[in-house]
């Protein structure tokens, strides 16, 4: 290829449209699939109506969600299409109305379930990213853009809330659902730790598997203070026999030796005993039945939540969790035996980026929960006053709107993160471009974190080697490289797994289903 041809290609590749491409793709994905996913996760809103005797229970079923393009409601009640420039000038929010199908259903105890009311109602307004699919200016040519007061070369990729332009900062997190083995020190001794950030549907749980100084394995996970014996936990999960446990960890003779030490120390032999022991840990001082219930709840709810999958039996999930823990144990032992080096946290393969769509999904999830609580309250109140239950009267659209707009306007995101949204840097055109492609590490800027601030070789082609601020944020705030491509999470995990299986990936032998662990 000669130079001029290459020039044509690269000019095409580095077109203006691609500058905020990652924001568009992520946000469009959220609009098209993410919102519906969140609604489907929620599925119903249950109420306390029916707790009293002689009352039929009432619940709300959530259906399809639909979003329009941004529009503005004037004082006279008329609704008109809203263009970004108008939103900026009038200090209003560039947001589109969101509609959701909701059905109030009564009955189920003595009477059959009946649909009391079912309509599609406006649940709130969703701020829309300028230039995204639901934006009113998409598809306009330069002339049309100029006519409505837009700058044809403006990259878009930001929101307009109360007239101010806000970018959602892409944040760089450690990859979830991945075993990371590393050294740590505890009471002055070097120990080996395998870590996994297990993540599913916005719930994030850190599971640690430690090999302490006496060679014993301990696992800690949320809702259990301190740590639990590895053997106790896998037995509680249904991996009972010594042989099976050892075999699942490794067949390597040295690791087997380590495992035998652990088994010798074990003080429970059966699943029941193990659950009982766990119960004493999670609900000490409570009744025995409650302890068992709590123990089962904890291991199904808080331990490795990412291994849950729709349509998979609880039994299978538990055994998968046991296998996963065994793999973590193996990682610890391998590290102890110097069979492997500790994982590099700064390796870009171990990083995942949270772009605007993912952030909006988090926001929408909590906003929907808030809406659900409000609907529940309104329903109960309406029921108490013996009013007719109608969807339109129990949904107050301000609740969702407020919960969506306020974090974008202030940057105070759910989960206590702040500075997530920032005012677009309009110092100059380059400032805007740089800001849209900026990337933030959640690491504290007050600590040195020398390694995390270094330019890592795996950032080649992905992160700009030169552009980083000087000062306390040095190396923690980064910018995308020009040719960076951001891949998206796949839509359908099942089909991916099928595809992998067809390519020769095998499941763990001994398990009927082929569910390769997620990593």
């Amino acid at each position, binding site marked *: 290829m000669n130079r001029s041809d290459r020039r044509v290609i690269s000019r095409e590749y580095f077109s203006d449209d691609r500058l905020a491409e990652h924001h568009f793709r992520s946000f469009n994905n959220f609009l098209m699939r993410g919102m519906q996913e969140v609604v489907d996760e929620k599925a119903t809103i249950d109420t306390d109506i029916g707790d009293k005797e002689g009352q039929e229970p009432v619940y709300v079923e959530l259906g399809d969600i639909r979003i329009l393009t941004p529009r503005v409601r004037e004082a006279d009640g008329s609704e008109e299409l809203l263009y970004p420039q108008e939103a900026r000038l009038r200090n209003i929010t560039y947001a589109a109305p969101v509609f959701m199908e909701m059905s109030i259903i009564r009955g189920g105890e003595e009477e059959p379930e009946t649909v009391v009311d079912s309509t599609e109602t406006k649940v709130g307004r969703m701020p829309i990213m300028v230039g995204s699919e639901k934006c009113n200016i998409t598809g306009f040519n330069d002339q049309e853009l100029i006519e409505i007061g837009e700058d044809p070369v403006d990259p878009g990729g930001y929101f307009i809330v109360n007239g101010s332009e806000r970018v959602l900062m892409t944040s760089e997190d450690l990859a979830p659902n991945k075993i990371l083995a590393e050294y740590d020190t505890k009471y002055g001794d070097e120990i080996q730790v395998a870590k996994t950030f297990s993540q599913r549907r916005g719930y994030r749980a850190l599971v640690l598997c430690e090999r302490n100084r006496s060679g014993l394995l301990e696992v800690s996970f949320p809702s259990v203070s301190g740590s639990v014996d590895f053997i106790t936990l896998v037995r509680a999960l249904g991996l009972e026999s010594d042989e099976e446990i050892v075999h699942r960890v490794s067949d390597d003779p040295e690791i087997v030796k380590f495992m035998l030490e652990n088994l010798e120390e074990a003080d429970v032999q059966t699943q029941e005993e193990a659950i009982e022991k766990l119960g004493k840990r999670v609900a000490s001082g409570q009744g025995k039945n409650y302890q068992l219930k709590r123990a089962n709840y904890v291991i199904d709810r808080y331990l490795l939540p990412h291994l849950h999958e729709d349509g998979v039996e609880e039994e299978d999930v538990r055994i998968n969790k046991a296998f996963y823990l065994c793999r973590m144990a193996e990682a610890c032992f391998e590290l102890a035996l110097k069979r492997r080096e500790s994982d590099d946290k700064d390796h870009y393969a171990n990083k995942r980026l949270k772009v605007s769509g993912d952030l909006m999904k988090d926001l929408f999830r909590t906003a929907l929960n808030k809406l659900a609580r409000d609907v529940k309250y309104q329903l109960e109140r309406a029921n108490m006053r013996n009013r007719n239950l109608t969807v339109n009267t129990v949904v107050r659209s301000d609740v969702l709107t407020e919960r969506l707009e306020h974090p974008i306007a202030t940057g105070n995101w759910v989960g206590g993160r702040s500075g997530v949204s920032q005012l677009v840097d309009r110092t100059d055109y380059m400032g805007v471009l740089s800001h849209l492609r900026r990337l933030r590490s959640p690491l504290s800027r007050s600590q040195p974190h*020398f390694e995390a601030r270094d330019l890592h*070789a795996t950032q080649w082609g992905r992160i700009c*080697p030169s552009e980083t601020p000087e000062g306390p944020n040095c190396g923690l705030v980064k910018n995308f490289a020009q040719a960076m491509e951001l891949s998206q999470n796949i839509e359908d995990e099942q089909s991916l797994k099928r595809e992998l299986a067809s390519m020769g990936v095998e499941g763990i032998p001994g398990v009927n289903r082929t569910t390769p662990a997620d990593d």
Partner: protein
Amino acid sequence: MSIQSPKEIGGISFGLMDPETYRDMSATKVITADTYDDDGYPIDMGLMDPRLGVIDPGLECRTCGRHSGSCNGHFGHIELAAPVIHVGFTKLIRRLLRSTCRQCGRLALNDEQKEEFRDRLVRAKELNEDPNDVLKAAVRQARKSSTCPHCGEPQADIKHEKPTTYYEVQNVLSGDYSERIAEAMQPDPDDEDDVGLSPQDLADKAEISLERVNQMLAGEFRPRKDDRRSLEKALGIDLTEEDMNKLMPSDIRDWFEDIPDEDIEVLGINSEKSRPEWIILTVLPVPPVTARPSITLDNGQRSEDDLTHKLVDIIRINQRFMENREAGAPQLIIEDLWELLQYHVTTFIDNEISGTPPARHRSGRPLKTLSQRLKGKEGRFRGSLSGKRVNFSARTVISPDPTLSLNEVGVPDRVATEMTITINVTERNIEEAQQYVSNGPENHPGSNYVKRPDGRRLKVTEKNCEELATKVEAGWEVNRHLVDGDIVIFNRQPSLHRMSIMAHEVVVMPYKTFRLNTVVCPPYNADFDGDEMNLHALQTEEARAEARVLMRVQEQILSPRFGENIIGAIQDHISGTYLLTHENPQFSETQALDLLRATRVDALPDPDGEDEMGSPYWTGQTIFSLLLPGDLNLEFTSSTGDTVIVENGQLLEGTIDEDAVGAFGGEIVDTLVKQYSERRARIFVNEIASLAMRAIMHFGFSIGIDDESIPPEADEQVDEAIRNAYERIGGLIQTYENGELESLPGRTVDETLEMKIMQTLGKARDSAGEIAEDHFTEDNPAVVMARSGARGSMLNLTQMAGCVGQQAVRGERINRGYEDRTLAHYKPHDLSAEAHGFVENSYRGGLTPREFFFHAMGGREGLVDTAVRTSKSGYLQRRLINALSELEAQYDGTVRDTSDTIVQFEYGEDGTSPVRVSSSEDFDIDVDSIVDRVVEAEFESAAEKSAFLDRQEPPTNLSEYGEPRGYEEVESDD
């Protein structure tokens, strides 16, 4: 205002206050919760009673008769209807309750134990240990005994429910003991083998008679303690329940009254100053109104302070309590009111107690009560007492002005008209003062305020200035604008050393920035990329005198950090003097005069010679010499490498560069300060800066990309050198892979290999640098700057022209990245130079993408380092300053802390100021030459000198029996 003489604080003692003292110091009892009546006058015996002090101007304090501003206010008091606990002492109350007898109030320790703990307490205080440890141990010991060793009363456990409730807890037999026993005897329904326990079995197991067991089961006999224990053991159940008896504050007060003085000493309380019952408040002091002023809003409404609000609550509840009690209300209501009173008094003292909902303002904002006023960063101690705000200061951006003297600072006119200096009008300056006043506040040398002798301050306005000017008399004070020559203090943060704050003379200038001479940049560490600096106008004659004598820039030319000058020529000044003196160029008369036009020199000496055309010329060295004092003699080696010889103020040979005139130890500047005067040095530095700028402009000085290029054959040589290094490294790797590499002592083979590779590459870079250097001409501007020390180094040049060299992260070659390799461009386990960050190209030649990336990796480390280091060193400095701040050099030469403990017998252990010693290498002070110089200056003629020096007087003060001692003897005595 009357002038009060300063008072010395003899000491501060802390203790509890007697309720009687509260009453004695109280100006009035407060009984009404209201503040002002309808006419806006404070209500008598109310919270704003005029006896508590005045805040409204015009009113008179009914206690001291003074007006607002001079009356500090007076405490009042509230008689509490019932005693309440002071929240600040809850832990002490608990400790006292637990360690003393509920009956006789004495400490539950016998005499030996008491003695022991008292001794340990004394010892802990002597050793400066935490007395709390001893006190805790004493309480623990006292709690052990279940009965009082003095009166035998059984002791109950004390339970403390935060924040202010105390219970006596005793385990007593539960009321439903018979049901509990019966239930435990029933068989377990889930267990078929369990048939339960018959009364006979129980009797056997618990070793109690069957009859008793039956009685107990029937509830007719309450089991004794021993029986209960055995029953509990036999059945595995608990038969007790806790009996909690709430201790009211009045109970606690009665209890504490019984504690004898000698016992509280053991518990660490000074019985002379404090009695434990005083912890329980019966009287509440009401802070003076001046401590809780109310503010009048724009609409005329009064808004009260948070403390006043809280006091209103307390008085209201107190009133209600008394009324209810007199009316004989049921105990339950009384207790509720008591608790409410306790709550209000608690939140009055501290509104951030965990477990207590904070008292809130109507708007929902938590009230800021006493403890909140003192606590934390914005509290009274850290915020108001340690933190200082200052008037008469200005801050703006700085910019350079080479025409100013280094002693001066350019002050924008708008700053000069805003900031003022107070002058006292006397007969001598009355005309001057009147002129300032009549100019008004807007015309520059004007004034903003005047103060009459009666203390009244008047603002000078455009309208009244003429009229005011006529009124000004001796005894008035005039706040006049800053004018040229005023002394001000100038400062740039961070103020890391004393040269960060120096005194300058004002030069009023147009525009908006502070202007300063570039030679004072090094002490302030300032540049002009947006730096801002602060300026303070001095307000008293003493301060101005002190600043002029001690703090002026010229007095700070020498840095106490290293004893040499910190002010001197920088950057282009040095290039300029280098160009002027290095090749000793010749200048025509016009040129020479042009070079010297900004100096005091206005006449040229005899010319050094004549050129071919017959016109006279002066050399650069001659021109430079004009700035030196006529009797200066010096010899040193310049940073260029040649010897500089100055004889009788003439530069005979050598190049003037950084080592001669530069900041941070320029030999000539240093010598001028030490041998002549600060003034002479200041003149020299000013002039050298002007001369150098003229010189560099005469020659012209620029640098471009071509100045770093080397001829192709040199490039060839550089490549050759790098190729050689690569070959050697290839050999090293080969031997390593064959397992033949010998490790260096104390290192592994891998480390040895790394080290050797690094060494080889370092050498390669150096030889590339040498090759490049050989091809640079002497007049290359980059070389001129590097040689003269103006900016940059030969290494920078090497990297620009030869080879950038190895990039390193944390002292090692670049090793991190993908698994077993740095970048995906290399094969795994590649040990070669280029795979680990060796940059063989030069900056001018351009880096390959991979080299660029490695360079960015190395560069990032530097950036992170600077960012992290600045914050760390700042904190380190702060801690050091805080640790040393109280040390002071006394007039007797010792260094002492605030308690007069001697830290050093002589300042710095040698009593030497770094700026007063010679900075030459052998550290000898040339006493003879100094003496000669001083003596020479002192006497006008040789005769006078000898008359003074040769005079000899017989020794005096000798014992009449002693022989007169000769001078030799005295001299040898050392």
